[in-house]
């Protein structure tokens, strides 16, 4: 009897899943998931793809699409339906240089997670009909990283301590990309908030450099580099065993990963928000660092990394 029931229930489950599969809610109009072209973006993109597929949607995987401009243009043009974006990115790329937006955003929203999110989300919705879901708690912002050895030798783990060290004439060579070095809300914002300043001799500026490159400069110690520009959720921080200097005053804009949808899509399938929000809520800095590291450091594919995470946390089987 028990056996029969098991078989029957299995058959029913099969039928159900089959019929669910056959009747995807968006039959013939796949949801196109994009992402930018670095590890965290691809992993988050894969997370969205797998969650939606698991929920029975037809999905087209367009992760690993291109740079910021390509992904955003594709979203606005309707080429993709969703990609993970950061509020900080949106502010600095689309709203920072527009006077009225600046006026509205005000002076101090960049470092304020809620204010910056509210600004970006409301303007994007109003102007571009792009809907921001709930942001993840992680903050993939710019940070300064040092080696653990250096941190322990000098007893420095926070930016105020670092500022003190610099002002006391400590030896510093910072490897950074040009954008971070020059943007007012980048390195200059650190200077202003914590009261220190680096001379030109203390900077090694690599044009267009990503944290991966500045971190490698730090890891190899070339040109006496002992501080590097980094992202808060870099997987490589683990690989190199670096320490991120804490930013207690929030000098940097907040970069919280958030799925951004075309309004048309999310209005057609509002339940998607319910699927993605609980998962993104789990993405704090250590979690994302771990995910990124499993790709960058361990060499897993982004697909595997996302699947492992979702299975481990019980979101998919």
């Amino acid at each position, binding site marked *: 009897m028990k056996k029969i029931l098991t078989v029957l229930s299995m058959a029913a489950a099969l039928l159900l899943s089959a019929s669910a599969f056959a009747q995807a809610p968006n039959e013939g109009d796949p949801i196109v998931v994009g992402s930018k072209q670095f590890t965290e973006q691809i992993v988050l993109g894969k997370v969205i793809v797998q969650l939606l597929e698991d929920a029975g949607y037809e999905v087209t995987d367009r992760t690993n699409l291109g740079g910021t401009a390509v992904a955003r243009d594709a979203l606005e043009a309707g080429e993709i339906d969703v990609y993970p974006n950061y509020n900080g990115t949106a502010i600095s790329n689309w709203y920072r240089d527009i006077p009225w937006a600046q006026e509205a955003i005000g002076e101090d929203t960049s470092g304020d997670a809620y204010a910056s999110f509210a600004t970006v989300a409301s303007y994007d919705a109003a102007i571009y009909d792009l809907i921001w879901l709930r942001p993840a708690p992680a903050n993939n912002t710019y940070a300064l990283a040092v080696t653990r050895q250096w941190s322990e030798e000098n007893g420095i783990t926070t930016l105020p301590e670092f500022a003190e060290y610099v002002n006391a004439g400590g030896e510093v060579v910072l490897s950074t990309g040009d954008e971070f070095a020059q943007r007012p809300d980048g390195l200059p914002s650190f200077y202003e908030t914590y009261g220190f300043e680096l001379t030109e001799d203390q900077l090694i500026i690599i044009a267009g450099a990503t944290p991966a490159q500045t971190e490698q400069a730090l890891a190899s110690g070339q040109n006496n580099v002992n501080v590097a520009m980094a992202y808060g959720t870099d997987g490589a921080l683990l690989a190199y065993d670096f320490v991120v200097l804490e930013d207690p005053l929030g000098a940097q804009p907040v970069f919280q990963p958030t799925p951004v949808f075309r309004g048309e899509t999310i209005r057609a399938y509002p339940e998607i928000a319910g699927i993605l929000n609980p998962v993104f809520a789990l993405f704090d800095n250590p979690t994302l660092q771990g995910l990124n590291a499993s790709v960058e450091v361990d060499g897993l*594919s982004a697909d595997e990394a996302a699947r492992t995470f979702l299975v481990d946390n019980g979101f998919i089987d």
Partner: protein
Amino acid sequence: MNRIAMLGGLIAGLGFFFLPTLALKPNRLAPGTSFNLFEFQGDDRYLVLFVLALLPILLSFRHDVESRGWLLVGTGSLLFVLTLVLPAGAGRLLLETPEAFLDGGAFIRNPRILPAGAIATGLLGAYVTLFAGVRDLAKVEVQTWLQALATWLAPIVTLLLLLNGTFDVYSIMVEFYANGAALEQKFVEHLMFVFISLGVGFVVGVGLGLWASRDERLAPIILYAVGIIQTIPSLALFGVLLVPLARLGDQSFLATAGFFGIALVVAVALAGSYALLADREPGRVRIVHLIATAIGAAVPLALFVGVLVSFVFRLANVGFTSGAYGDTTGTILVLLLAALATWGVGRWFVPDESRWRRGLKVANWSLSAATAVAVVVLFVQASGSNRVLGGVESLSALTIRDLGVSGIGVAPALIALTLYSLLPLVRNTYAGLNNVDLAIIDSGRGMGMTPSQRFFQIELPLAFPVIMAGVRNAGVALVGIGTVATVIGAGGLGDFVIQGIVNTSIDQILLGAIPAIALALVLDAVLRGVEGLLTSPGIRQVQQ
């Protein structure tokens, strides 16, 4: 004395002496610790490599050319294989107790063995030595097949060892096992970028080259235009293409077809009026008329070709990369090989008079036809798949995007790659056609050939080697440029390269770069072969 062999020995020897052989990386990203050949502690057998590397220097002083050749070939081959095999063994030992060799603070997670500089110089030195040996053998006219064997033995043994898993310890192989599944698909995508854009570029480029060679006044304009295209950075080109292509993708198929029809009528009208009036128009008006006609014809044509190519790409992508049609793709491959074989045998091994020739010809034709049919079958099968048309149910709901044209993805990539392929194709076609001996063309005219007979029987065969050189240039260049397609979300091997650059993972860069290099080399060799097969010995002789 064999100076080349001496050079080979020096490269390999100095490399092993001064450069690190391996690096032990605590994880995928961290740089790790380097090891010289002499630092593999307590194990002297690795010094064999150093001795072997210096041997060619001694051998190069031998006077007897034949024995010297064989000894160099032997040394070079052995050095080639052992340069890869012995460090692999050392690497396995290092991986057994990585903590022992790394700093205390290192973050050890899936440590890897990176082959370092000395392996590269070792392989280079070995190859140079091998080359020097084969040259000696060629000098004393050793049989060709023995020379070929000598040349290819080491690479073949290396390939077998690779398949056997001997080199799995190296980080690039680790990366391959981690991302290998995607590699095949990316490789096929890349291959299709190159072939499709080269194919379209070939038609357009040869056409433009032909046009340029026929009209002296337009030639500089055409050459200048394709030259300008070459200077546009690919990123800018993608940016320019994104919005209009996205808009085009939004259009319904029926409306576009209608537009295409109207544009076609306009083009035909322009062309017709040009044909009727051009003789009576003054020079300047005629040029304007001609250009208007060309643009009027080019716009709908480009639209049509663009949509068609994107659709074919999508079909081909689904057909060739999804396992569902494996039987058909297998059949196509077998038929294609058989057709090539019958053609080659018929052309090169069977004398003109033989009665087998006709039979082979029939076999070749039927096999070619069967291949074409199989390709059509594959496309029909694939077009039935949801993945091609996205399951659109009615024709009126069909948009151009459903046919594969969109602002991101393969459409802009194919357009950009096609545009980039034009310069070498146009330039070489123009040069090739312009350099055909006028006496030969005149003799064709004098014999009463029609313009098309003249083109196909005289100009094309004579310009063929030059045009093919352009095809080769374009093909090899496209393999490289194709890696940029990743930034517009088109995929291909560039996915690995760009991601590797973004996270400074050398292994990942190599995973994309090595197949791309191999593809470029193989493509060059294959196109060279095709060129050789299709070029008459008479023309080859003239070129020499």
